[in-house]
């Protein structure tokens, strides 16, 4: 099979396709977006008729994937770590229903918060749900794990989590492909009640999940993804999980680490190998990207016995992603350093694109709000979050997807009137609609601005689920049609838009303002491809 140069994300996508994937469900989120994008762009996936459309949010994606598994086919669901919070209800219960067709849940963590609100570690969720985790150290393992993960899932009758972190997701290396497997045929679950989580059945299923734990451990102990690497110096033993192994080996140019290592790429932790390391070595160092989950497990409550080093005792920083120098320092090795950054070098923060419609929305809003003063704008997650930075300084909150509308409602309930919510079109359908219904039910005096750029802009311009239907959705949720105001955010409309905003800010009920102008990035791409098509 051919060798390909692939991002970690792309390797997962290709591995799943080659393993007989029938459908992938996802909501875009850095660093997971490229998995779905790759499958959408794949000719092979098109020929195999693999389902590959974006879902409205991570929960609907997770549930659709469970449905495909129910039907006996192999399904994958992909999102970033905070997306797993949205999908958590379905995710936790999928461990209890079990699977029929293999089910892989890809959760891409973002230590150092390159593009995120927190650093949470998805391995905790998999441990919480009591299912296996596959955590690749490199692009080849990412491919191999997606390829063999479905089989593991079907064998153990549980979803399998494939956990990656930003660095691997967005790093390219060569990948060797395996032979292509056929998709499963449709096959209903042999136990017709397997997926019915009525308490009586759930109790039975849950007991089975518990009984299944030793089998999961056994799979880890004999997994080719986990290995015990002998070393000559037993003063210390190292547990290196996922990509942390690479950073460790980088410090040994000949790749000969003197300390014994357990390389962990599959969980539950391989007890046998860990016990051997613990019994052989005088102390243990745990290298892991994310939370100190393995370190906590090894350390135990009373911290008796041998010293355990890692993120908890300060040997490694408690936050942020790892790198070769951090690991070297932790091991007590001397590290190289380059020159200092000259003091003239300035920060270059991300900003809204020149010509972006959100800019006009904020200029209009800042003026409309002048008479009320600052501090009453609740915003959401997307490009428009950059309105928090100069020159706009226009928003006061960004907590999670959908929180703008509900936070504005809560603030209005507290008496902060008017309260304003700013949300994008994609985020609105992701998690804003239910909050708007709450506001309508109580006729909360809030002004909701759905800044509609007809795409999911922050992650690069994916399709937005309610494109062209935002007004109808707001009507359907019960917003009074007189208070649904569509506008075009352009300089020339500034005065008119400010006037409309002021009118609705004064209204003592739910109003929805919908400034509509396509994202300039997708607009430019569309024009370019239209031009190309007309030339062809």
């Amino acid at each position: 099979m051919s060798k390909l140069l692939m991002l970690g994300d792309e390797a997962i996508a290709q591995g799943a396709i080659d393993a007989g994937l029938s459908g992938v469900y996802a909501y875009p989120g850095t660093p997971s977006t490229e998995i779905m994008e790759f499958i959408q762009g794949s000719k092979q996936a098109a020929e195999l008729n693999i389902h590959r459309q974006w879902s409205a949010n991570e929960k609907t994606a997770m549930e659709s994937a469970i449905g495909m598994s129910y039907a006996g086919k192999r399904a994958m669901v992909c999102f970033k770590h905070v997306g797993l919070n949205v999908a958590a209800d379905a995710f936790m219960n999928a461990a209890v229903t079990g699977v029929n067709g293999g089910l892989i849940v890809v959760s891409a963590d973002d230590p150092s918060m390159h593009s995120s609100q927190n650093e949470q570690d998805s391995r905790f969720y998999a441990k919480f749900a009591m299912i296996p985790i596959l955590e690749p150290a490199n692009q080849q393992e990412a491919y191999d794990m997606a390829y063999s993960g479905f089989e593991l899932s079907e064998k153990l009758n549980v979803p399998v989590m494939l956990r990656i972190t930003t660095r691997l997701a967005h790093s390219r290396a060569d990948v060797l492909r395996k032979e292509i497997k056929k998709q499963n045929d449709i096959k209903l679950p042999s136990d017709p009640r397997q997926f019915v989580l009525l308490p009586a059945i759930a109790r039975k299923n849950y007991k089975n999940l518990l009984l299944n734990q030793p089998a999961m451990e056994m799979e880890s102990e004999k997994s080719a993804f986990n290995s015990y690497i002998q070393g000559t110096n037993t003063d210390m033993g190292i547990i290196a999980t996922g990509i942390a192994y690479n950073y460790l080996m980088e410090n040994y140019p000949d790749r000969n680490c003197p300390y014994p290592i357990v390389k962990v790429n599959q969980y539950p932790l391989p007890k046998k190998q860990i016990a051997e390391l613990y019994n052989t070595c005088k102390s243990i160092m745990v290298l892991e990207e994310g939370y100190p989950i393995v370190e906590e497990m090894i350390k135990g409550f009373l911290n008796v016995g041998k010293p355990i080093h890692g993120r908890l005792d300060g040997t490694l920083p408690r936050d942020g992603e790892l790198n070769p120098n951090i690991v070297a320092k932790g091991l007590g090795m001397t590290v190289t350093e380059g020159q200092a950054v000259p003091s003239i070098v300035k920060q270059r923060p991300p900003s809204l694109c020149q010509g972006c419609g959100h800019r006009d929305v904020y200029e209009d809003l800042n003026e409309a709000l002048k008479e009320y003063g600052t501090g009453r704008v609740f915003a959401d997650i997307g490009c428009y979050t950059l309105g928090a930075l100069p020159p706009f300084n226009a928003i006061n909150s960004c907590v999670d997807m959908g929180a703008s509308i509900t936070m504005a409602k809560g603030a209005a309930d507290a008496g902060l009137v008017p309260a304003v919510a700013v949300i994008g079109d994609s985020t609105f359908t992701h998690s804003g609609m239910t909050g708007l219904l709450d506001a309508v039910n109580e006729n909360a005096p809030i002004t909701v601005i759905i800044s509609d750029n007809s795409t999911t802009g922050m992650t690069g311009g994916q399709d937005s689920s309610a494109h062209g239907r935002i007004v109808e959705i707001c009507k359907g949720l019960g917003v009074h049609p007189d208070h649904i105001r569509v506008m075009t955010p352009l300089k020339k409309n500034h005065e008119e838009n400010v006037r409309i905003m002021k009118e609705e800010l004064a209204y003592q009920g739910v109003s929805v303002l919908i400034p509509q102008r396509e994202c300039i990035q997708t607009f430019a791409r569309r024009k370019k491809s239209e031009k190309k098509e007309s030339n062809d």
Partner: protein
Amino acid sequence: MKNDIILAGVGGQGILSIAAAIGLAAVNNNLYIKQAEVHGMSQRGGDVQSHLRISDAPIASDLIPAGKADLIISVEPMEALRYLPMLSKDGWIVTNTVPFINITDYPQPEEVLAQVNAVKNHIAIDAEAIAKEAGSARAMNIVMLGAASLFLDIPFGKIEEGIRQLFGKKGNDVVELNLKALRAGREFSEKNR
């Protein structure tokens, strides 16, 4: 051999095409490669860097250790300085001299260039002017690749081949323009090393 390269610039300046061209050349030369990119929020006008590692032996880390980069290729002069902690003692900086000013507190361009000149091994090149001469200002990043190619352990012919592969779909004119830009960059480095 190993070439550890930091590619630096601002979101949207085309540093990933430089990475792709070097990547193709490396793969065609049967070398190992790892290339870590920055995606997402940072791309919106923020600083962007890519770690590109090429070696004749398997590569462990996707990230280059601090103080170990052999080369910084920057399509913008202030961004070249941002990654000085990554550069090894004998490493080279190859940077475009044309500033990309999208912040209000950008330092005086002369001061930035003075700092670049203070680095022992450096090539400062007005890549835009050279690209324009070659036929299109947009080929600036390929001029930069040409200028940097002098410091890569990949035969120049293989890099030319990578360019042909990368732009092949866009027609012969585009290929030739980029090859011209590549060679002009290379020539500049040879003269100014």
